[in-house]
């Protein structure tokens, strides 16, 4: 209402303009939005959520229940903690919140994150926190102090307390000066500790202008100097604008030089409000009376004290105009309330700490230590400044709390307990009337204490009201559970820089820039970006894939296969190790050869597959599926470290060491001949499933070439170190140009392999499929032991009607079966129709001139030649069951 001419911690030379609900205002540097609004005479800042009642600014800090605002795109903030800045635009949040998409995503970017470690984390830079920080810092310990205010000092910023004979803020300045000289001490202001987790891990949010920084602090010890929150009093009309915590009014006067009213009635059960009243009166506020229910009142004071009385009700409609006390009405525009103080025990409670109700202090006090957390100062129930500074405490008189103030009339419809949730004493009565006795149940039934403020002014108040209504001692009721976050935190801040392209790492190959330049359409395989197909001008995906397939079957095509996982397996027992890991035998594989292998989990289900080369008697290069490389390495390490430590074998991931290109098709031999002029390429000199080291002059020299085919065509895979991958790719394309070499993507690769009935682990399998189910029985050794072998002879895994991989040829060759489609024997039987399998892969084949699919079908191999049906909702597609090898059954294309 009034900005004082002097005092406060504002900069009168730095006026700031801002708007609130569309109207322009001015304030000063150092103001909060709330203090600037109060200085401008704005008393009503919200409309309550259920009853639409006007609500004013009630507190001066994070405990504010009413003044919720949207500020410059930040969806929900308390006006009491928003620092005023020039041009700030705020809007009151009225009624129920609405989650809207931010207009400008970029505006929310730029939040930061920081990890920190320390010996001692002090939460709160008030007198107790600064004392603890100095004590720890002087030992040379690494200390971090976090405080939610803009500067250190805690509530000393908001009072005119003295330390010795000097203003307390002089002591604060001296303390912060000493801390600044300690190199291992860091003080973070504007930083709120949001949550405490196991092992001294505390997450805190730092405000940096419109941006934020999330601190993840790991501390050997946590000192909680979190202070106390003032309690309101519960009386009729206690929600009217103008009813305010006494300590908040004191803060507005002392810190912001604002008087939040002209004439006040103080209603208190605690001596602290007397000091507040004295300081406010000195600043110019008229104190009409002090109403103190305690028969003897409080300390000596110059004001009229109505001891032994209560405020029976606040009057007024839009805002408070007076109070009824002892049968008379006292006019006022401000009711300053104080029902005592609650230690801020949120983090302590999150640490699993127990709270004890202290009858002398009339509050729940942390008892002992919990999970590396020690509590000091007001948070520990030490409310005297001397006690917080480590001197001899000066306890006040025993508290005499008043939890519920009856009105002049019966009923509790305007006795508010939770101002944000609009919960009244009548609501709590209703909860108790249903038979609820637990404060947790009453909280959930009434929603008291569940708002953004986590019940900072309402949770213990609600317990007090329950105590008063039921006549049960506070200590028997206890508190509700404390859960993070202490104050609201935006998802954008939690996300930090993990957004946009940094949200999820992308893995790219050495050839990636070429794929991008060529206009490839990419697909994600694990974290890799792989070209899915390369559309030509005017081509859709289907046309591109048909063209790429035709090139591989009739001419030559090339694919970037660098993403395959690669594991270097070395040691004298490497052959024996692979014999145990794969279902088929590797120990006798000759050096210079390679072999397709299948590995199972212990349950006999297929886990991964790939081609492994023997590089030397004691060295193999294993390849894995693209998405499974890390899981396979973990699997190998698990067996080596836990089951077979006697085997002298070591594994090393070399996935990114090698870039690879598959050269596929009848003309691939011509291309490789041009690429590697020194290589003998005829079938006798370089047979299928062997590898050679050779010189590829266009790609840095040394290369490894293997005759491996995942398409059934004559094919080579050429590998060079990653550095030469792009050169290799370009050299392959140059060498293949005379033959019309065509780059192809994963979709064409899938079609080509499916035409040959080669399964893809993870697409045609789902962890319930054995090698035999896939038709890979030939790769399952009958003579050696391997992981999963015993499971394969279980009655369930060896029964004949398991789902087996088969081909499906739709009767109408234009009809494409969706992957995942369920298959039935007879679509006309009544529901529920028994399912006999499902489609795992489905494509259009250039070679077959029709669509086809792979499917897992019950007893599928015995159904070859029969017809099955896929009910697709609007139609039923019939398909003939076929051998999964649909193309070149004789393998005539393999050798060119």
């Amino acid at each position: 209402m009034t900005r004082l001419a002097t005092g406060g911690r504002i900069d009168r030379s730095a006026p700031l303009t801002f708007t609130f609900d569309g109207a322009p205002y001015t304030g000063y540097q150092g103001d909060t939005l709330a203090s600037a609004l109060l200085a401008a005479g704005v008393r009503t800042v919200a409309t309550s959520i259920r009853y639409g009642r006007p609500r004013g600014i009630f507190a001066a800090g994070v405990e504010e229940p009413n003044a919720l605002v949207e500020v410059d795109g930040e969806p929900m903030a308390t006006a009491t903690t928003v620092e005023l800045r020039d041009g700030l635009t705020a809007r009151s949040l009225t009624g129920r919140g609405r989650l809207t998409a931010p207009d400008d995503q970029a505006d929310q970017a730029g939040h930061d994150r920081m990890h920190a470690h320390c010996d001692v984390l002090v939460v709160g830079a008030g007198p107790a926190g600064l004392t603890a920080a100095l004590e720890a810092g002087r030992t040379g310990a690494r200390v971090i102090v976090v405080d939610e205010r803009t500067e250190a000092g805690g509530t000393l910023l908001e009072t005119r307390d003295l330390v010795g004979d000097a203003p307390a803020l002089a002591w604060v300045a001296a303390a912060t000066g000493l801390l600044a000289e300690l190199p291992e001490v860091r003080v973070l202001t504007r930083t709120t500790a949001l949550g405490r987790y196991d092992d001294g891990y505390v997450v805190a949010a730092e405000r940096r202008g419109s941006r934020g920084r999330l601190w993840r602090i790991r501390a050997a010890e946590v000192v909680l100097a979190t202070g106390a929150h003032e309690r309101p009093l519960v009386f009729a009309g206690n929600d009217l604008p103008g009813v305010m915590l006494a300590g908040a009014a004191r803060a507005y006067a002392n810190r912001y030089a604002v008087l939040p009213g002209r004439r006040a009635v103080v209603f208190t059960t605690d001596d602290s409000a007397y000091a507040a009243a004295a300081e406010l009166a000195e600043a110019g506020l008229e104190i009409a009376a002090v109403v103190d229910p305690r028969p003897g009142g409080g300390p000596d004071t110059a004001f009229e004290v109505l001891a032994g009385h209560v405020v029976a009700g606040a009057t007024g409609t839009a805002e408070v105009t007076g109070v009824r006390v002892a049968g008379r009405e006292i006019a006022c525009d401000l009711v300053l309330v104080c029902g005592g103080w609650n230690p801020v025990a949120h983090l302590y409670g999150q640490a699993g700490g127990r709270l004890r109700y202290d009858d002398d202090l009339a509050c729940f006090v942390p008892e002992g230590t919990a999970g590396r957390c020690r509590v000091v100062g007001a948070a520990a129930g030490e409310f005297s400044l001397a006690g917080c500074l480590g001197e001899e405490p000066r306890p006040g008189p025993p508290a005499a709390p008043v939890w519920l103030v009856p009105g002049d009339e019966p009923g509790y419809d305007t006795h508010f307990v939770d101002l944000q949730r609009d919960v009244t004493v009548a609501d709590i009565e209703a909860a108790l009337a249903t038979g609820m006795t637990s404060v947790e149940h009453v909280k959930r039934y009434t929603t008291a204490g569940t708002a953004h403020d986590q019940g900072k002014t309402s949770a213990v108040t609600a317990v007090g009201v329950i105590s008063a209504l039921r006549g049960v001692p506070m200590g028997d009721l206890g508190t509700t559970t404390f859960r993070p976050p202490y104050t609201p935190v935006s998802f954008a801040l939690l996300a930090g820089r993990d957004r946009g392209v940094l949200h999820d790492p992308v893995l790219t190959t050495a050839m990636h820039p070429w794929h991008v330049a060529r206009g490839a359409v990419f697909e994600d395989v694990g974290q890799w970006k792989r070209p899915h197909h390369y559309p030509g001008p005017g081509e859709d995906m289907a046309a591109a894939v048909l063209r790429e397939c035709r090139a591989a079957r009739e001419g030559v095509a090339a694919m970037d296969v660098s993403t395959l996982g690669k594991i270097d397996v070395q040691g004298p027992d490497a052959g024996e190790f692979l014999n145990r890991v794969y279902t088929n035998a590797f120990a006798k594989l000759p050096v210079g050869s390679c072999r397709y292998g299948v590995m199972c989990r212990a349950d006999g289900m297929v886990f991964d597959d790939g081609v492994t080369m023997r590089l030397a008697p004691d060295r193999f290069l294993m390849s894995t599926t693209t998405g499974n490389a890390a899981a396979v390495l973990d699997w190998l390490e698990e067996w080596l470290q836990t089951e077979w430590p006697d085997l002298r074998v070591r594994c090393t991931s070399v996935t990114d060491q090698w870039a690879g290109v598959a050269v596929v098709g009848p003309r691939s031999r011509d291309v490789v001949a041009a690429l590697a002029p020194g290589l003998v390429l005829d079938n006798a000199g370089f047979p299928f499933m062997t590898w050679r080291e050779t010189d590829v002059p266009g790609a840095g020299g040394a290369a490894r070439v293997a005759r491996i085919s995942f398409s059934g065509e004559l094919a080579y895979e050429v590998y060079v170190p990653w550095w030469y991958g792009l050169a290799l790719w370009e050299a392959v394309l140059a060498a293949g140009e005379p033959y019309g070499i065509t780059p192809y993507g994963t979709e064409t690769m899938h079609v080509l392999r499916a035409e040959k009935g080669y399964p893809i682990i993870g697409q045609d399998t789902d962890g319930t499929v054995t090698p035999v189910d896939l038709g890979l029985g030939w790769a399952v050794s009958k003579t050696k032991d391997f992981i999963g072998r015993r499971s394969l002879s279980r009655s369930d895994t060896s029964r004949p009607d398991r789902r087996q991989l088969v081909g499906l040829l739709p009767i109408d060759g234009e009809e494409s079966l969706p992957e995942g489609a369920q298959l039935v024997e007879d679509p006309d039987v009544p529901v529920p129709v028994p399912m006999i399998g499902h489609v795992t892969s489905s494509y259009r084949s250039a070679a077959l001139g029709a669509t086809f699919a792979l499917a897992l079908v019950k007893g599928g191999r015995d159904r070859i030649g029969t017809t099955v049906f896929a009910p697709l909702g609007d139609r039923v597609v019939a398909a003939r069951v076929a051998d999964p090898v649909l193309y070149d059954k004789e393998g005539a294309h393999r050798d060119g």
Partner: protein
Amino acid sequence: MGEPPQAVRRSPLGHLAAELRAASVPGTVTVREVPFVRQVNVRGPGGKPFPAEPNTVATTGDAAGDAAGDAEGDTVLVWLGPDEWLVVGPGEVPGMPGAEHESVADVSAHRTVVELAGPAAREVLLKGCPIDLHPGVFPPGRCAQTLLGRAQVIIVCVDERPAYRLFVRASLAGYLAGWLIDAMREYQCHTY
């Protein structure tokens, strides 16, 4: 065809060299790729000169050098696990007296090296690295396998500027470079 190998080789971050230069703030924090560093992964029972103390690096021979392992500098042995080391630099892979290596794998192209140096380098790392990098805990000669952002990295502290070498998979280097450039942005302008 037949060009010298150096003419056609590409480092994983070669195409981002200008961006890394632009993100650097001399005197505060600089970032650059140290490309084509020879790296050999060695696994086996260990023994001198392979460091036995976890998360430490050692140099081969008697030359007193830094812990960088530059192409032109010393060869360093980075502890990766109780039976695993990364030999970084041009020197020979030392033998293990009395015990054979069970595995020696050239992984020079598997990872590239990013050097982050300057007074703010530690703070940049702490934006995404959860381990304690305090100079008393992670001084020059220390190494760790950890996360930076969402990238798995080997971090070696090489000198007291401080400078750190980050070893990152070639395929993931683009992500890491993007993350570092984003994390260093606040040092570009002080009106952040």
